[in-house]
């Protein structure tokens, strides 16, 4: 059946901000979907609140709405656009839930809009665990024994006695909890005993949208597999990829190390899963599109249990697409409009799309965590996803892929290396319970080192015990356990990891023992070790044992001398059965290379690697834009990245794609290969965040041309002394401060600068280990963290600066060509200085700065850009206090705000900068300063606190948000309101507002309280704040602080009356004291503000909302054309 002609206009729903469990993979799928439908001649309308996406680029769709993804707003969009159909299967759980909501409230039927890709019935059947279990029973597939509970009592019955649902059998402990209708397993968990059951059921019920939790028999330790499948309207069915989880059941698949294809299944066992997956698709009724089905397999007898299925494109689909080269989202979009699989072609080979990819390499995905950002969180992995990103690696053997994945993570590990001597294993083991779950105590202070060194049997026992608990570093503990003398069987018994994987890891450890300096002279030995994925730096380290130190550079030189160099294979969907037309490449050490570089002029673009907090989709957006701009300019683009979720790693985004770790060794290998033909104009290092920037010096030293701002200029902006010299030359001010080397010096410097001070390690991104210390006690508590982070980043120095309390922060993005600097956008933060710029809400154009200050900021930006010789993008952060402008930092690279600025102003900064880097002048490109926009755009941040029970939600200088949304409207209040709505904060119409603020904020808080009281809100306050309110004539209910005893503020919030909390504090002690109120606000899903500026802006949004009316929605294309209504 060819494409449907009855559809003309199709609306695609995106997935909103990046959160844990829903990341850039939905930008990848939405972008592929939009391209695919546009290619077919449909008019595509896009809705997504996340500006940092390629899918919201105004060129991609006919009409693009950056609006909140919630029912009322989407209804307004649908009423305005009247599309023929909505495609909800490319935008993750968010889009699916939204589509279902609009189906249930009758909006879709009322407007005559069809849901394509998945029917409401199929979505319900797959999502509702009860219906799903019934469906599975109907087709004869086993699922785990389980029952639904709506209270602790019901839960206890299911677990301890059993009921009709469980067939009369108790499900037993450990009990697996899965709340209905949540995202990424939020609220899920494992209860080991009755006490844990009580706590965790409460949390799960709270997180479930429908107040229901499924309790399941434990299948911990079983093997876990996922099948990525596609079905079309004619019941044609294919498996695109089978993924095996290295971590056995019990760890969320998003947090598991996974391997493709499955490594430990016989064909019979695999076909049983395939048959089951097909039956599931048919029974659930997914008629067109991609889905995934997850299975658990008992390793002792092969018994199979169906865990779940997703009737939509998922993160695993992105992984499967990148792992095989099969573009699932694109194909799914085409099937949704009526095509059959056999009517579509496989772009890579030109053969039919109706086939099952087969691969002749091994793919390993390794998740990346950010526990260092959430001190006090439970670092054990479970059914609730906690990772913030992932790296994927391709090798010709499992070992090679595993070691490449380990070094792709950028966690300072150059393979499956040893942590012995680096990690305090004694301290790790002695911490009986790293997390506290629901306990309302403030997080513990970081632990001091144990000072203990473990050896022999004690070390082995410790490592085996650590290996038995799933954590981010578990595989390293496994490696070290083997190094400490544990046998394979002991490791298998401790971990339940399949013996085959354990054997592979043991081979790595065994191979290490034979590495010594002689490998540098023996090509056979060297090749053998490189084929196992050992990096040059790891080989150097191993070969240096008990001998003269050898550097990675020397290993590389020896390799080149001996002809042991990387070769490149193609990802071709077919294991070389057909020639591949697309240069999608990975390295290995084989006999011949298939890279076949062209004779064109080319540019290599280095991507950002795995998503993490502080470096995410914004940088991928920039890399993709660089590629687009350079391709338009006729230059061949070569993308290098290892993040499978991204648009940059789509095989058709750039002319050539290397799916490789972003290390100096791997990048130099690609440079060598590409330079064999054509002319390498240079490498772009300023678009992928800190990851490629860190490689700039090494690349320059190896003689590789760097495009744009020079490595020296980057150093001048990063190096404290050189930067100060520059500011002095230009007569620009910055907060007082100095460098400290080590802990002792830190106290001296802090005292001389004067408290409060900002402390941070140099050369880190996202405010890692950055903190404000109000006094010496604060500094003592935290300084060693900063020193440690500095060491991880490869420096000795920490920076200590004066902290400008109450200053307004301003961010500027600009483009320079060496002769001229053009301002892209000036953003004023809503939160005052002290909150990381990535975490604060910001407003474009500035909402309360006098024009003279904005002009001063712009001219300082120009002066800095010219003096540094910026060629490309730059970002400058300013603090403004009492009309005085100080410079906080300059980054001569793409910033996190580039996509936001581009969407807000309608000007593609990253593309312009890419052309500039290639040698065009801003003048030649016709780019001048943009006029001040008539509308207001607000960027708001989104936080993962619900995934980290026990973590403080207080905002500070260390960035902790995972993503962002944009609100765009004629006024600040409306735009801020939209941004809040988009970040899932409901705008209340009535209820109680609880205010408890520090003295400095009492005036502002009083004004806010008066305005809210005028709207009919009830005000509650703690004693001190209440007095201030009373003296201004605002009546407030006075509530106890927690330490004054119950009933206190936390009880009030728990009671459900409170709709907004304003809580500001000063000093470490006060912050710790108010922890429980912030935590309870999070649990009760109450809008919580830890800065008064944020609260005031929210108050204005409440006022705007109170004025009423349907949401006013406009497209980006309209805003760019000057819409002002």
């Amino acid at each position, binding site marked *: 059946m060819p494409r449907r002609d009855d559809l003309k206009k199709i609306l695609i729903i995106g997935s909103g901000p990046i959160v844990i469990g829903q990341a850039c993979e939905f930008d990848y799928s939405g972008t592929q979907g939009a391209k695919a439908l546009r290619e077919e001649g449909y008019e595509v309308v896009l809705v997504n609140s996340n500006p940092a996406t390629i899918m919201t680029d105004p060129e991609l769709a006919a009409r693009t709405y950056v609006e909140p993804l919630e029912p009322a707003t989407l209804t307004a969009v649908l009423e305005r656009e009247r599309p023929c159909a909505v495609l909800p299967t490319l935008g993750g759980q968010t889009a699916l839930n939204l589509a279902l909501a609009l189906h249930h409230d009758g909006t879709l039927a009322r407007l005559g809009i069809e849901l394509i890709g998945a029917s409401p019935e199929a979505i319900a059947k797959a999502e509702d665990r009860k219906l799903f279990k019934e469906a599975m029973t109907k087709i004869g597939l086993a699922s785990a024994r389980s029952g639904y509970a709506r209270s602790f009592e019901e839960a206890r019955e299911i677990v301890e006695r059993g009921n009709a649902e469980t067939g009369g059998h108790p499900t037993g402990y450990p009990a697996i909890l899965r709340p209905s209708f949540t995202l990424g397993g939020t609220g899920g968990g494992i209860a080991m005993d009755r006490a844990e059951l009580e706590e965790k059921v409460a949390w799960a019920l709270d997180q479930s949208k429908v107040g229901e939790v499924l309790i399941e028999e434990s299948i911990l330790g079983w093997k876990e597999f996922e099948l990525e499948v596609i079905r079309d309207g*004619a019941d044609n069915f294919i498996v695109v990829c089978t993924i095996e989880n290295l971590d056995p059941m019990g760890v969320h698949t998003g947090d598991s190390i996974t391997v493709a294809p499955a490594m430990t299944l016989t064909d019979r066992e695999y076909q049983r899963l395939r048959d089951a997956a097909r039956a599931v698709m048919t029974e659930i009724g997914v008629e067109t599109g991609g889905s995934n089905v997850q299975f658990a397999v008992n390793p002792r007898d092969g018994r199979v249990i169906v865990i779940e299925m997703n009737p939509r494109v998922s993160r695993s689909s992105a992984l499967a697409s990148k792992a095989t080269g099969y573009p699932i989202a694109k194909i799914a979009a085409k099937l949704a409009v009526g095509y059959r699989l*056999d009517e579509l072609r496989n772009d890579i080979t030109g053969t039919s799309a*109706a086939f099952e990819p087969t691969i002749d390499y091994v793919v390993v995905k390794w998740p990346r965590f950010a526990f260092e950002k959430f001190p006090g969180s439970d670092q054990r992995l479970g059914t609730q996803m906690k990772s913030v990103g992932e790296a994927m690696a391709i090798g010709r053997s499992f070992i090679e892929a595993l070691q490449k994945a380990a070094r792709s993570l950028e966690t300072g590990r150059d393979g499956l290396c040893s942590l012995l001597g680096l990690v305090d294993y004694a301290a790790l083991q002695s911490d009986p319970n790293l997390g506290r779950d629901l306990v309302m105590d403030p997080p513990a202070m970081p632990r001091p080192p144990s000072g203990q060194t473990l050896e022999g049997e004690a070390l082995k026992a410790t490592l085996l015990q650590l290996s038995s608990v799933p954590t981010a570093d578990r595989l390293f503990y496994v490696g070290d356990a083997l190094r400490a003398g544990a046998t394979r069987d002991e490791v298998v018994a401790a971990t339940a990891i399949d013996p085959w994987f354990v054997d592979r890891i043991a081979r790595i450890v065994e191979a290490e023992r034979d590495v010594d300096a002689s490998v540098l002279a023996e090509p056979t030995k060297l090749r053998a070790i490189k*084929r196992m994925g050992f990096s040059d730096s790891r080989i150097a380290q191993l070969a240096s044992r008990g001998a003269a130190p050898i550097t990675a550079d020397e290993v590389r030189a020896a390799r080149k001398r001996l002809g042991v160099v990387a070769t490149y294979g193609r990802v071709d969907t077919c*294991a070389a059965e*057909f020639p591949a037309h697309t240069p999608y490449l990975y390295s290995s050490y084989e006999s011949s290379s298939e890279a076949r570089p062209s004779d064109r002029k080319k540019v290599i673009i280095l991507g950002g690697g795995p998503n993490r907090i502080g470096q995410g989709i914004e940088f991928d957006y920039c890399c993709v834009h660089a590629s687009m701009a350079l391709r338009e300019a006729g230059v061949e683009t070569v993308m290098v990245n290892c993040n499978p979720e991204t648009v940059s790693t789509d095989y058709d985004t750039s002319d050539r794609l290397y799916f490789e770790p972003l290390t100096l060794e791997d990048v130099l290998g690609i440079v060598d290969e590409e330079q064999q033909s054509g002319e390498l104009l240079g490498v772009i290092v300023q678009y992928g965040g800190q990851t490629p920037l860190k490689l700039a010096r090494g690349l320059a030293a190896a003689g590789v041309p760097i495009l744009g701002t020079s490595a020296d200029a980057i150093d001048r902006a990063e190096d404290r002394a050189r930067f100060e010299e520059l500011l002095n030359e230009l007569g620009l001010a910055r907060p007082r401060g100095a460098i400290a080397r080590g802990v002792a010096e830190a106290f001296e410097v802090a005292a001389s600068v004067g408290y409060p001070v900002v402390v941070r390690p140099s050369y880190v991104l996202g405010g890692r280990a950055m903190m404000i210390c109000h006094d010496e006690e604060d500094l003592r508590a935290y300084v060693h963290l900063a020193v440690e982070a500095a060491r991880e980043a490869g420096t000795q120095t920490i920076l200590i600066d004066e902290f400008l309390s109450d200053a307004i922060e301003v961010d500027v993005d600009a483009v320079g060509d060496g002769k001229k600097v053009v301002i892209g956008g000036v953003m004023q933060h809503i939160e005052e200085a002290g909150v990381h710029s990535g975490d604060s809400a910001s407003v474009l154009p500035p909402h309360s700065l006098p024009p003279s200050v904005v002009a001063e900021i712009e001219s300082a930006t120009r002066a800095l850009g010219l003096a540094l010789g910026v060629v490309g993008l730059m970002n400058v952060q300013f603090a403004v206090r009492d009309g005085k402008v100080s410079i906080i930092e300059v980054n001569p690279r793409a910033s996190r705000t580039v996509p936001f600025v581009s969407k807000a102003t309608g000007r593609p900064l990253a593309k312009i900068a890419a052309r500039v880097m290639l040698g065009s002048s801003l003048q030649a490109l016709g780019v001048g300063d943009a006029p001040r926009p008539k509308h207001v755009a607000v960027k708001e941040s989104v936080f993962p606190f619900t995934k980290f029970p026990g973590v403080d939600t207080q905002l500070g200088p260390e960035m902790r948000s995972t993503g962002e949304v944009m609100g765009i409207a004629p006024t600040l209040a409306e735009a801020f309101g939209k941004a809040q709505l988009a970040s899932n904060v409901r705008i209340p119409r009535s209820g109680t507002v609880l205010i408890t603020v520090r003295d400095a904020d009492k005036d502002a808080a009083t004004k806010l309280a008066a305005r809210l009281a005028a709207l009919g809100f009830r005000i509650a306050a703690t004693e001190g704040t209440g007095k201030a309110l009373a003296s201004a004539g605002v009546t407030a209910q006075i509530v106890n602080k927690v330490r004054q005893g119950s009933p206190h503020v936390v009880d009030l919030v728990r009671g459900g009356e409170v709709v907004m909390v304003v809580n500001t504090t000063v000093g470490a002690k006060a912050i710790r004291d108010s922890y429980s109120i912030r935590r309870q606000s999070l649990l009760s899903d109450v809008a919580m503000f830890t800065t008064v500026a944020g609260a005031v802006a929210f108050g204005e949004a409440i006022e705007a909302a109170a004025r009423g009316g349907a949401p006013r929605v406009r497209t980006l294309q309209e805003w760019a054309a000057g819409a002002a209504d």
Partner: protein
Amino acid sequence: MPAPRPARLALADGTLFEGLALGAPLPHDGAVLGEVVFTTGMTGYQEVFTDPSYTGQIVTMTAPEIGNTGINEDDTESRDARPQVRAIVVRHLSELRSNHRATEGLDAWLTRHGVTALTEVDTRALVRHLRDRGSQNGAIGEGSAATLVDRARSAPNMEGLDLVAQVTPEASYTVERGNQPEWRVLEAGGSRPHVVALDLGAKQNILRSLVDAGCRVTVVPARTTAAEVLALSPDGVFVSNGPGDPAAVTYAIDTVRDLLGKKPLFGICLGHQLLSLAAGARTYKLKFGHRGLNQPVLDQTTGRVEITSQNHGFAVEVATLPKSARSTHIHLNDGTSEGLALPEARAFSVQYHPEAAAGPHDTLHLFSRFVAAMTA
């Protein structure tokens, strides 16, 4: 596992691929000879190595990690459970087996049965070479390159080669057992038709599937004549898969021709080619064949796509089919013949392997169709 020894594969066109020999020791001064082919399945190496259709061939696995699940008693496709391939070429052969059904490691099993594995080979480069230049003979040995290339050139050409004699049973026998209940997918109906299966190197799962579908199965040797078959009073006749050039198996073509119209007939793989030849069509050798578990076939009757398991180096020329024959299936990638029906003769056949093993179960229903034809 003994230490691997350096060895190499030489192709008849002079190309060399280096590796390490595992499994059975290579002949001291000689080489293992055979046609070098590749298969792209990611699972089911045990089924491949025991598939009699691979007789005389050196099989390259494109999947890089082979042997992980060891060898078990169920998943065998040869009657004697022995490997049928001449040698195997892999990227990595697992030192350790991990599966609850495994009874032996792959290396030990190969050694026990005298089969050599060439490991640590750049199999991708080898496959690309075979894809571009076509399947050809090769020799695996430890000797000099020149010697091995000479040996590879000395091996007999697959075209015109009858290998069926090596794999067909000496005497007829009956098959009683289907698949274990745990693995059974097909369901038997009420009828119990009698099938005579002409065994030209039949995969055991074909016979097991016939039993699963409710058939009583008598297996007969390749040189059984039509009269002898009919004397067994079958309800239908099955013609199996097997190795070598179909055109060389003239006696079986005669048998099939003589049976046409007399009993319902079902052929698989070589059986499909023999039915076509018997009906008057021609066969030819493909450049590098179809071997894998992901081959898309269009069922021209239903319009549906089936993902099939395939293993064949020869194909039927569709244009030469007589008017009495109808093409029922074609390969979606290259349009080659995948199935035909002779409605008047109540005969049908497919080029692919509906019994899978290894491979998807999309087309198992053909066994039920055969049963329906016999009981109609």
